[in-house]
């Protein structure tokens, strides 16, 4: 028992980081209604700022400016802390003013997309500013002398100190929310913004203040924790942020103490897994450490969730409008013919970009069904695609299942998992559902994508995938001495056409209308006899099947599957691209494919303006943010709006001309 206590306490430091990040996420959400996925990245910047100040320099985040101002010597702990915290404050105000404020009235997904852009921006900034060394060890701040538990069991005390600090921060935030007018106003605004306005509180002020407080909390913890870890761009951005989202979820993005307790528990229990993995014979060999906490979070949310939303519940997950689906020779036939012509006539590199576009469009279609029509969200879409890819490899190489049975079975396997991940949707909604599916994606990645026997090892040569073939007719991309066969592009185009027609017909059918009804108001839909459970499961099932098909297409294209392509960031990026293209229509999915990285738009741009050099990722992140702000309903939505406005103007002019 002492051993278990030892490991629990060893995890207090990691738990404190998770808890504090969870608190920051809660504060941000309470202030602005935004789940800021870039929270960890901002905290990371603060930690690097501190670290560099201890080396005698201050880093600037703006490209074009000198990368640092050199003080010469270590500015000392106090000044480094003050300057780093001031940086955090300024950064949060800047980000609110430039990014989140313009998106205050936008659908919640627009904020998700913008925060993903911020993640890319911050990581690339670190890469550029610390070109020679991004992994840094910071000198100790908190006392490190060991604390003796019993006889020979000692633990470093800095983790315990960090846990105490997290506790103090929680108490302070709780007290502010209970006893200060601004804290009460923030809580009130989170429930009903209009009420807060009537009481004289500016939502902008509350949102900005929440962002500042959250940034300071994150910066304090990141700085104090940095001597306990090796600082690198991903540790705060993803490593601690994702479990922090889980902790905030348990706290319902509202309650500080449950968030703190959950965060501490996650860190401490993960530490205990170090011992459990050898003490317990049935312990999973791979993925348990990161995956089990998420599994527990998912189950907890399902248990705590409501089958139907409460009467009058505020919808915190507003989505873009869904246009009608028009199927005509012009809207379907012409693009299809153009794509085929492109695949046949263009050179290999343009053809490759066109293929990337088509696959990206398929993946975007899966999100059109789920999010556009169904009003649900999944941040695990690429996990489904990856699973299908690995299943295809297994079916095709190990069990010799031929095409087209193998990819269909693989997609069905992804569907099963999609239904499992979608189960929480029966009781969880909006932001909470988004994060639960993120947890689901992480769980899949942990238990499946980490397992060498499932994803391939050296003995198997990785997860290889043979070319698609019907009998002797091989229509793979590479065959014999041919390295870029148009027939594969035609195959992709046909699959995309079938899926696009399927999705369009779903929209036009009674199933689509039922999905939209559930999306619009679950209680009303249930009241008129719609089987809300069945509709949600159908939506998740269809969506994950399409994502699975996308995964098999990727596998066929490259002849192999790698777990590296299907991580959390891949799912977030897929959602971003789908959203920006237009997540509520087939044309939006096609637009998403066109604008996807390495798709035809990107390739065309690179041909015209060349490489953007070392700042390419940074510029990409900025563009993502800008596009989310400029087109909060997606590019396709913006085009539709412009088209509708032009049409209305023309009709008015026509009417005026007729009248005169």
């Amino acid at each position: 028992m002492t051993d278990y206590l030892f490991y629990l306490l060893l995890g207090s430091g990691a738990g404190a980081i998770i808890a504090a990040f969870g608190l920051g996420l809660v504060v941000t959400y309470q202030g602005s209604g935004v789940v800021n996925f870039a929270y960890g990245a901002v905290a990371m910047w603060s930690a690097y700022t501190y670290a560099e100040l201890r080396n005698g320099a201050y880093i600037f985040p703006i490209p074009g400016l000198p990368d640092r101002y050199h003080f010469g010597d270590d500015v000392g702990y106090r000044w480094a802390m003050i300057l780093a915290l001031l940086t955090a404050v300024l950064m949060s105000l800047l980000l609110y003013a430039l990014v989140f404020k313009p998106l205050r009235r936008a659908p919640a997904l627009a904020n998700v997309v913008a925060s993903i852009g911020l993640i890319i921006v911050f990581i690339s900034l670190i890469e550029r500013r610390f070109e020679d060394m991004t992994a840094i060890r910071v000198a100790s701040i908190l006392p490190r002398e060991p604390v003796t538990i019993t006889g020979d069991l000692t633990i470093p005390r800095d983790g315990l100190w960090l846990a105490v600090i997290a506790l103090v921060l929680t108490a302070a935030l709780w007290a502010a929310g209970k006893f200060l007018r601004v804290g009460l106003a923030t809580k009130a605004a989170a429930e009903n913004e209009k009420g807060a306005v009537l009481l004289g509180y500016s939502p902008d002020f509350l949102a900005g203040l929440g962002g500042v407080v959250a940034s300071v909390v994150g910066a304090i913890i990141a700085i104090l924790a940095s001597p306990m870890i090796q600082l690198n761009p991903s540790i705060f951005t993803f490593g601690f942020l994702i479990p922090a989202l889980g902790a905030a979820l348990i706290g319902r993005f509202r309650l500080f103490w449950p968030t703190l307790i959950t965060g501490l528990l996650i860190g401490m229990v993960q530490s205990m897994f170090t011992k459990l993995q050898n003490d317990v014979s049935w312990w999973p060999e791979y993925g348990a450490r990161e995956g089990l906490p998420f599994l527990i979070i998912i189950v907890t949310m399902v248990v705590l969730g409501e089958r139907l939303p409460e009467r009058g519940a505020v919808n915190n997950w507003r989505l873009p409008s869904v246009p009608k689906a028009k199927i005509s020779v012009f809207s379907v036939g012409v693009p299809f013919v153009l794509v085929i012509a492109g695949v046949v006539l263009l050179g290999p590199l343009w053809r490759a970009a066109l293929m990337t576009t088509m696959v990206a469009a398929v993946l975007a279609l899966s999100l059109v069904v789920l999010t556009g029509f169904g009003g649900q969200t999944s941040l695990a879409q690429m996990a489904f695609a990856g699973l299908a890819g690995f299943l295809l490899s297994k079916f095709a190489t190990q069990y010799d299942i031929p095409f087209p049975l193998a990819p269909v079975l693989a997609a069905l396997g992804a569907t099963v998992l999609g239904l499992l991940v979608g189960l929480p949707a029966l009781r969880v909604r909006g932001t909470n559902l988004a994060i639960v599916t993120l947890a689901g994606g992480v769980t899949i990645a942990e238990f499946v994508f980490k397992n060498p026997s499932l994803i391939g090892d050296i003995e198997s040569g990785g997860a290889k995938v043979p070319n698609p073939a019907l009998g002797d007719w091989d229509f793979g991309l590479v065959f014999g001495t041919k390295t870029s066969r148009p027939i594969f592009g035609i195959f992709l185009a046909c699959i995309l056409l079938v899926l696009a027609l399927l999705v369009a017909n779903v929209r036009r059918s009674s199933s689509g209308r039922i999905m939209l009804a559930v999306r619009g108001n679950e209680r009303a839909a249930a009241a008129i006899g719609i089987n809300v459970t069945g509709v949600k499961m159908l939506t998740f099932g269809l969506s994950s099947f399409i994502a699975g098909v996308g995964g098999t297409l990727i596998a066929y294209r490259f002849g192999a599957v790698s777990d590296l392509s299907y991580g959390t960031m891949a799912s977030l990026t897929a959602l971003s691209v789908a959203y920006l293209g237009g997540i509520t229509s087939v044309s939006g999915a096609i637009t998403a494919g066109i604008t996807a990285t390495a798709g035809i738009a990107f390739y065309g741009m690179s041909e015209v303006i060349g490489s953007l050099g070392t700042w390419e990722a940074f510029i990409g992140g900025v563009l993502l943010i800008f596009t989310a702000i400029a087109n909060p309903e997606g590019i396709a939505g913006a085009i539709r709006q412009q088209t509708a406005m032009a049409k209305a103007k023309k009709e008015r002019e026509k009417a005026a001309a007729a009248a005169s």
Partner: protein
Amino acid sequence: MKRSTTVGSRRSRLVAALMAGSLIIAACGGDDDGGSSEPAATEAPAPADSVAPAEPAPADSSAPAAEAGPPTGPEMIVGMVNTEGTPGLDFPDMRRFAEAAFDYLNTSGGFGNRPVKFESCVAKGSPETSQACAQELVGKGVELVLVGLDLFPDYKTYEAAGVPVIGILPILPGDYTANALYLSGGTATSVGQMATVAKEKFNAASVGIVSADNAGANQVAAGLEAALTKAGITFKTVKGGDNETDAGYQGLMREASKDNPDLLISLYSDAGCIGTMRGYATLGLDVPVITTGICADDDVISVVGDEATNWYFQGVGKDTETPERTLLRKILAPVIGVGEDEVRANGLGLGGLGYVLVMSLRDYANQMVAAGTEMTGSNLFDFLKNSTGLFLLGGETPIECGAVAAYSSVCAFTSPWAYYGGDGKVVPQEEPFYLVDSKKYLP
């Protein structure tokens, strides 16, 4: 669709591969702190820092004592794919240093007496961009493709086009059996060496292993377990997170050492080096630990100091001045933008891999031409694959392409070892455990 992934996971995989990017080690030795990303910060020690071999390397033409004139043969187009421009996956120096080496060769002897037109393509760490690079290079009529750091080399395209592929560092499982040749053994061979050292130096009957729970490390751990089993050594594996706190590493080391094993093996690299070393020292352990050369990096040793006592490092060679180093300084100084005296051969980071790749191939090309074979990409590939008696740049690490059928693309199975010798110094292991061969216990 940008199918990027979590930055950390790709870095983890790359760092795991760099654990045995140790062939460079043989030519290199020492630590480095170059590079722009997590792996680069703790990467394989610098290249081209070779030991003067005990015996002269057979037909080693790398000594620059008398530089040859410009090449007189027909131009040869050589392509290179390298990953750059993506956060966490940005290794431009590999391409730049390779290009610098080719620029030098074009004034001095060429590539088998052929001047080289160097065509590079930047992959962004995604399969799409790697495939696009393959298409592009094949379209440009390259005779040979060099793989710098490419996570998703499109072997199918190269094979269909009949273009041979030679790289420096296999990373993913598919690389080890691809139709390509790699001048280092990657993580696969490192585990064989660890089993050899465990068995034959330390006479270990039982081993405790600490490893991160990520896809790359899990594959390495699985390979290590198989190698230890082959060596008749029992083991207990303790898995931790990718990003532990120091306290977490202490817990891992404690659990791994709980049953009093004869030896500990740490598969952590990069961030885990300092944490595991500190945890080991805090627990007062004295059982020997073997780990990767990344943990012998200056940045690690300067932080942990004597906490690295009893630690042994795979893939760390001797640090001596050699004619190869002199040439390296001359070639790379203008690229780096410093004087020749300021070039730290053991501070080149991953860029050095590109230099070693080109200059090693130069040696083989010269030997091939001297033996009467026409210099072409295919001939060079076949020569490398089938010849014996070749060594990596510097003459220390033997090249034995295909020596183990299960790793058909791997050409190097040997690397040097070192240990922490006190006073902040990492010193080469004494013979016969300086150069360790992995083949005996490779799974």
